C-alpha cells in the first residue's frame, strides 16, 4: 500500500486517490470519499483547503443562471442539489451533488451532445465521488478528475485514469495543470 501511495502521489494524484483502493467498483465510486450533500462537499473543501466561506444552498434555477442554458441542458437533469461557497480565487465555487444513479445517463447524454455537435468540449467540472466542483484551480491536487467522453485516448501527460460509469467515458487526471 505504501508503494502504491508513493507511486500515485508521484503521479500528482492527491491524498484522496491514495485511499481509492479502499473504495469498491468503477466509476466515481473509485474517486474517493462519497459525498452526498452540498454540506458534505463544503466541509470536505474546507478540510482540504482551509476555506469554503459562506456556503449557500442554491436552487436549480440559479444553477441554470450560473452555467448558462446550453450547459444547464446537459448538467441540470442529473443534479441533485448544489450550493456555492468562496474558496481560493473563486467568489462562487459550485459544489454540485449529482443523482448518483443517473451518472451513466449524464455521461451518455453528454456523449450524444458531442456527437450531435451540440457541444464541442468535455464536461468542465472537476469530478469526485458523486459530486463535482465547478472550479479548476488546484482542484486536481484534491484528487478530483476530469471527465472525458471522447473516443480520443488520454494524452501521455495523463495521470490517474479510470473508467467512468458510461462506456466510452473516462475519469482522468493530468499532471501539472488544471482542468478546463
Amino acid at each position, binding site marked *: 500500500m505504501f508503494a502504491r501511495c508513493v507511486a500515485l502521489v508521484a503521479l500528482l494524484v492527491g491524498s484522496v486517490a491514495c485511499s481509492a483502493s479502499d473504495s469498491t467498483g468503477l466509476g466515481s465510486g473509485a474517486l474517493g470519499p462519497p459525498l452526498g450533500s452540498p454540506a458534505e462537499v463544503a466541509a470536505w473543501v474546507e478540510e482540504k483547503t482551509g476555506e469554503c466561506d459562506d456556503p449557500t444552498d442554491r436552487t436549480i434555477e440559479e444553477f441554470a443562471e*450560473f452555467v448558462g442554458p446550453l*450547459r444547464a441542458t446537459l448538467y441540470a437533469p442529473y443534479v441533485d442539489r448544489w450550493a456555492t461557497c468562496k474558496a*481560493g480565487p473563486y467568489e462562487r465555487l459550485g459544489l454540485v451533488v449529482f443523482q448518483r444513479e443517473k451518472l451513466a445517463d449524464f455521461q451518455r447524454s453528454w456523449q450524444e451532445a458531442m456527437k450531435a455537435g451540440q457541444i464541442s468540449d468535455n464536461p468542465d467540472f472537476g469530478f469526485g465521488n458523486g459530486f463535482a466542483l465547478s472550479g479548476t*484551480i488546484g482542484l486536481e*491536487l484534491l484528487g478530483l478528475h476530469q471527465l472525458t467522453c471522447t473516443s480520443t485516448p488520454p494524452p501521455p501527460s495523463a495521470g490517474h485514469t479510470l473508467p467512468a460509469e458510461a462506456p466510452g467515458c473516462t475519469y482522468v487526471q493530468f499532471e501539472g495543470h488544471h482542468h478546463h
Partner: protein
Amino acid sequence: MRLKRFGALALAALGVAGVTTVLVQTGVAVAHGSMTYPASRTYACYEDGRRGSGGGDLLPTNPACKEAVAIGGKQPLWDWYGNLISQAAGKHREIIADGDLCGPTTKYDAYNLARDDWPTTTLRAGSTITLHYNAWAPHPGTWDQYVTRDGFDVTKPLKWSDLEPAPFNSITNPVASGGEYAWQATLPNKSGRHIIYSIWQRNDSPEAFYSCSDVIFEGGSGGDTQAPTAPGAPTATAGSNSVSLSWTASSDNVGVSSYQVFREAGATDVQVASGSGTTATITGLSPATAYQFYVVARDAVGNTSPPSAAVSVTTQPGSGEPGACTVTWGTPSVWTGGFTGNVTIKNTGTAAVSNWELVWDVPAGQTYGQAWSGTVTVSGGKATAKGADWNRNIAAGASTSFGFNGTGPTTAPTGFTLNGARCA
C-alpha cells in the same frame, strides 16, 4: 483578500507535497489569469456586472456583456481569469478555430460574439504603457501580445489572419507582485477600434490562457502607418551549439528601429534574438540539429514588416565540450532497497532546447521503474530520459524536472548530456 484565499487552495497542494517533495520539485502550482489592463472581455464584463448589481451578484449593463451572460451564464464572469486550454502546448493556431479566439472553450464561447459594443479601453497609439495581467501565483511562461491589422472589423468573427503576424510585445517570466504581473509595452501605431489578443503559454505545463482586450487607439506619433520592407533572407554559419545569422537591412519611410529573429517551432514560433543591427548569434542550440530562422523588422511606432524568407541550417556535431545546461539530481524519498529520483535540467543557454533528451551513465546496481513528467529507458548502461508532451521544450534560462522510482543504491549518476551536448 483574493491572495489569502488563493493561498488556501495552494495550501492544499502543499498538503499533498507534505507526503513527498515531488510536487514542489516538479513545479506544480496554481495559476489562472487574464489581462486586467487593458481589460479583457471577461474581466471588463465582470467589473460591469459587479457595478450593475451593486455587489453580491453579477448583473452586467453593457449590452454585449448582457448577451454573453444570457448565452453562457454567469460562471465565466465569476471565473473571468480561467479562459484557458489545458493541453494547448503552443499549438494555438492548430487547436483554436477562426472565430473562437476570444473564447476557445464552450464555457467562454459567448465571448466570441462579433459585436462592436464590448467595453473598451482607450489607449494612445505608439505610447508606452504598463500592461497588467492577473495571476494568482507566479508561473514561468511567455506572454505574446498581438494587435489586429488595419481595417479590422470587430463585427466579424475574429480570425487568426486578422492579427498582425508578429506580436507587438512579448515577455518571458515577468516579475509577479501583489497577485499580478505588470510590464511595460510600447503600443503599435494603430487608429480606432482594435483587439489586443494576449496568449500566455506556460512553459512548465501545456496550459495556455487567452484574452481579448477591446481597445480604441487615439492620437499617435504623427501618422506613420507604413511598415518596413521585409529583411533579406538570412545567411547562416553554424557551430555545434550556435548559429550566426546576417541579413540585408529593411527600408522604411522613417527608419527601422529593431529586428526580431524567430526560430520556427511549429504553430507558434519563438523569438530568439532582437537588436538594431543586421546580425545575430543564436546560442544554446543542440548539436547536429536542424533549425529554421527568419527575421522581422519594426519601426519606432511598432509597424512590423513581413517576415524575411527563412534560412535552414543544421548545427555541427557535438564536440564534447560542456553545453549550455546543468543537471541537478535529488532523492526526496528513500526506502529500503529503493528511492524516488528527481532530475532538474536547467537550460543555461540563450535559446530554447526543443524535444530534449537527457542521457546519463547508470550507476552500478541502479534500475529505474515508473517515471513521471517524462519517460526513462535504460540500454547498454545508459539511461535516456525524454520530456512529456507538455515539457519537451525548455525555454532559455528555464528549467524542467522529471522523476522516477528506482531500486539499488542512491548514487548520483554522472555523464549527463542534453541533446548530445555535455552538461556542465
